[in-house]
């Protein structure tokens, strides 16, 4: 035995260390956790006198302690996203996997529970071939199980159709039939040859859960999440922590990190300090102002990656003076996007072009030049419209960067002679006001649900939704967007989105401010971690070095 350990045992016996200090030091000397009980006996304690060694044994595993700002509310995948990002981080691609998924940190699709798929020549039917895999409770992953997971979202009368299912419309609006041809073959038939089906099936709501668990727990499924992913649920103390452990039987091989402890810590500063004191290995959200300090500290690193989000202003044409196109265009010219990039985001921000964020089909940097920051032009347009004296209210959310960003925009608009006042509302009131079309200008962002441009182009600008939020109806844009949904040639598809984007910019109901990045802070030894494009945090490829 190591001399230092021998000396340590003697010191402990002499009462120079508390049990806790003793265990910590012993582990520090490289003693395995399993050997701890023996050391206690050597120091003269009764065997099994304490539970500490067992707990410390757990600590000695390769554990990742991750701090997240959000609460964890409901880890049922069909509800994911409805209660914020806490659930998505914990569940998506960690506990649950879909039949397809994104390559970590990108938006290109790769096989997941399905190893391959055939698309019929008419683009209407997709046949998926599933791999042999099992849920954490041992139930095999079958085509029937996948079918049940999809149908519980579509069919209101399904016994597992729980309240709050959010993405049915986005994912399944073109789906007419789902058939389990045999245990490993699943066919999805569409009413029109939409190419959005595959990326939509990679969405976090389409994670597949065990039908046995659904049957056993019913409405309390959320307390017993059972998927087929690399991590299985261990325990959950609401509002505090959510613990998962490595799945030995994961089809992709056991992940390197043995256990992940997700902790909810709402305050960004507190989370950063916990990273600094070693209470956390990872904080999934850094304030942009803290990024340089973390980057400059050798003990830590800043983790980033493609993150798909667009920040924008909605200009509601139902409300004067925004019914005048000149006023809307004036606002486009007036906003200093580079200033937001610098002041609010400390550079971690791409200046806005079209609605589609960078990294996706249909993003084009040249669209930045449609509305360059030219206050003089904005003033002229405003004069032309003769609408300078009307008071405008800019609605924004009260948390995070929003108030500051709203102030910057307010100053920009006042500089061209508009009278702008700010109204900050917390999220619930904010969204219900927009959904009721009671706002004039609203500042918000669209965090992509899928890795496909359709998710913003159709969901935001189709008449059905744009009418309320921007008072915007453009049948041509509608047509371009629905055509793009069934266009199989990527080049042609990009052109359709570009054309629609140009049209939307010309009509000017929507100011693309920019695309925020997202930064996580981690201990230097944490490798293989990337910010997921949808705000997810995928642990399966992560390794913890020394």
């Amino acid at each position, binding site marked *: 035995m190591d001399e230092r350990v021998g000396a340590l045992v003697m010191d402990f016996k002499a009462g120079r260390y508390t049990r806790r200090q003793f265990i910590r030091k012993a582990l520090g000397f490289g003693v395995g956790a399993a050997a701890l009980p023996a050391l206690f006996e050597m120091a003269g304690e009764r065997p099994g006198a304490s539970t500490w060694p067992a707990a410390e044994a757990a600590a000695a595993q390769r554990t990742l302690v991750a701090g997240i700002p959000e609460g964890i509310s409901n880890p049922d995948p069909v509800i994911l996203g409805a209660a914020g990002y806490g659930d998505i981080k914990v569940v998506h691609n960690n506990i649950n996997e879909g039949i397809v998924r994104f390559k970590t940190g990108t938006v290109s699709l790769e096989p997941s529970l399905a190893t391959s798929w055939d698309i019929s020549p008419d683009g209407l039917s997709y046949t998926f071939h599933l791999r042999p895999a099992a849920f954490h409770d041992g139930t095999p992953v079958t085509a029937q199980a996948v079918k049940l997971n999809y149908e519980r979202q579509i069919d209101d009368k399904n016994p597992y159709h729980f309240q*709050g299912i959010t993405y049915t419309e986005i994912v399944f609006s073109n789906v007419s039939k789902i058939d389990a041809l045999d245990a490993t073959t699943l066919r999805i038939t569409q009413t029109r040859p939409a190419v959005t089906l595959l990326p939509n099936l990679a969405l976090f709501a389409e994670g597949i859960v065990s039908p046995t668990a659904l049957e056993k727990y019913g409405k309390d499924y959320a307390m017993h999440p059972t998927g087929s992913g690399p991590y299985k649920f261990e325990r959950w103390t609401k509002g505090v922590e959510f613990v998962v452990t490595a799945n030995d039987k994961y089809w992709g091989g056991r992940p390197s990190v043995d256990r992940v402890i997700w902790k909810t810590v709402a305050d960004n500063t507190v989370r950063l300090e916990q990273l600094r004191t070693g209470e956390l290995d990872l904080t999934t959200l850094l304030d942009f102002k803290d990024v340089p300090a973390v980057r400059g500290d050798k003990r830590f690193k800043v983790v980033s990656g493609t993150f798909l989000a667009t920040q924008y202003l909605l200009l509601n044409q139902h409300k004067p003076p925004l019914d005048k196109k000149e006023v809307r265009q004036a606002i486009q010219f007036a906003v200093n996007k580079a200033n937001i990039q610098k002041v609010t985001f400390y550079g971690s921000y791409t200046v806005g072009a079209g609605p589609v964020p960078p990294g996706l089909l249909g993003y084009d940097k040249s669209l930045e030049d449609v509305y360059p920051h030219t206050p003089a032009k904005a003033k002229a347009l405003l004069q032309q419209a003769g609408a300078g004296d009307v008071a405008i209210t800019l609605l924004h959310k009260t948390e995070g960067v929003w108030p500051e960003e709203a102030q910057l925009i307010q100053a920009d608009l006042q500089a061209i002679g508009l009278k702008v006042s700010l109204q900050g509302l917390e999220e619930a009131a904010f969204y219900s006001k*927009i959904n009721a079309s009671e706002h004039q200008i609203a500042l918000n962002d669209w965090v992509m649900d899928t890795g496909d441009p359709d998710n913003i182009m159709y969901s935001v600008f189709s008449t059905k939704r744009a009418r309320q939020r921007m008072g915007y109806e453009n049948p041509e844009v509608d047509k371009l967007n629905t055509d793009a949904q069934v266009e199989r040639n990527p080049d042609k598809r990009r052109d359709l989105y570009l054309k629609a984007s140009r049209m939307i910019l010309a009509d000017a109901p929507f100011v693309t401010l920019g695309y925020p990045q997202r930064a996580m802070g981690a201990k230097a030894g944490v490798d293989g971690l990337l910010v997921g494009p949808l705000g997810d945090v995928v642990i399966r490829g992560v390794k913890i070095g020394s």
Partner: protein
Amino acid sequence: MVRYLARRVLIFVPSLMLVSILTFVMVRTAGGDPASLKLGLHASPESLARLRREMGLTDPWPVQYGHWFADAVRGDLGRSYLTGSRVTYEILNRFPATLELALASMLIAVPLGIAVGTVSAVRPRTLVDHLSMLGGLFGISIPTFWLGVMLIIVFAVWLGVVPVAGSNDVHMGVYPITGWDALRHLILPAATLAGWPMAILARHMRSSLLEVLHQDYARTARAKGLRFLRLVWRHAFPNALIPVVTVIALETGYLLGGAVITETVFAWPGIGNLTIQALAARDYMLVQGTVLLFAVVFAVLNIIADVTNALLDPRIRY
């Protein structure tokens, strides 16, 4: 006494009903609706309408309240919109941690507050008195979220003597909440939360003791030659304490309110943290449940205060 208690408990029931109606109306008039929040802007008006229907939000208020009340009297407070689990489960799961935090804070606040108030009253208008009252003013006016973060920076980050946040060692799990590690995690949030009641108690103790010391019997005692400190300790202090007991009980109730912020700063797994989440999500069921719990706690503390008063003060008769 028994009749008095029975009367108090009887008043208790309609008060709770009134609280539940008020909460029901207030949470619904606060603006924003849970369906809109769940779907954000990611769904069409049709989806929104469908979700509202599923959540039972399309019924008229009296009908909604009727459903809730009928279930509530059977002990079922409904299911949380946010988590889908039972409100009673969520509350029982979180309440012990808040209780622990509140009691720990009172353990700090009561002895210190009474001590400071007593010293101030015994030496009025001296430097000690002014300093204590200035400190009290700070305790009342400093916002908890600021005090919390300052304590974290000094004691957890600079000095490193206590952890930054959380309720237990991360590898230990959350329970049991006993043991040295849990205690280390408890110190900062309890101290933060203790600031306000300590200041309030010190002020009450000071004024109450000063009042007693100016009463006739105190002067008589002095006139017959009793030493001042003995007068304070034997005669004035117990009498001055009576109104302070009521304050202690009420402040324990208010602590639940203070805990809302303290728990958020320190990631403390209590009911305050839960209430914030519920309010932000317009989780009507959960808000109604937690507020009802606050009301019950307040009412019970009030009854306790009255009873203790009666026991301590022989002049009170029912």
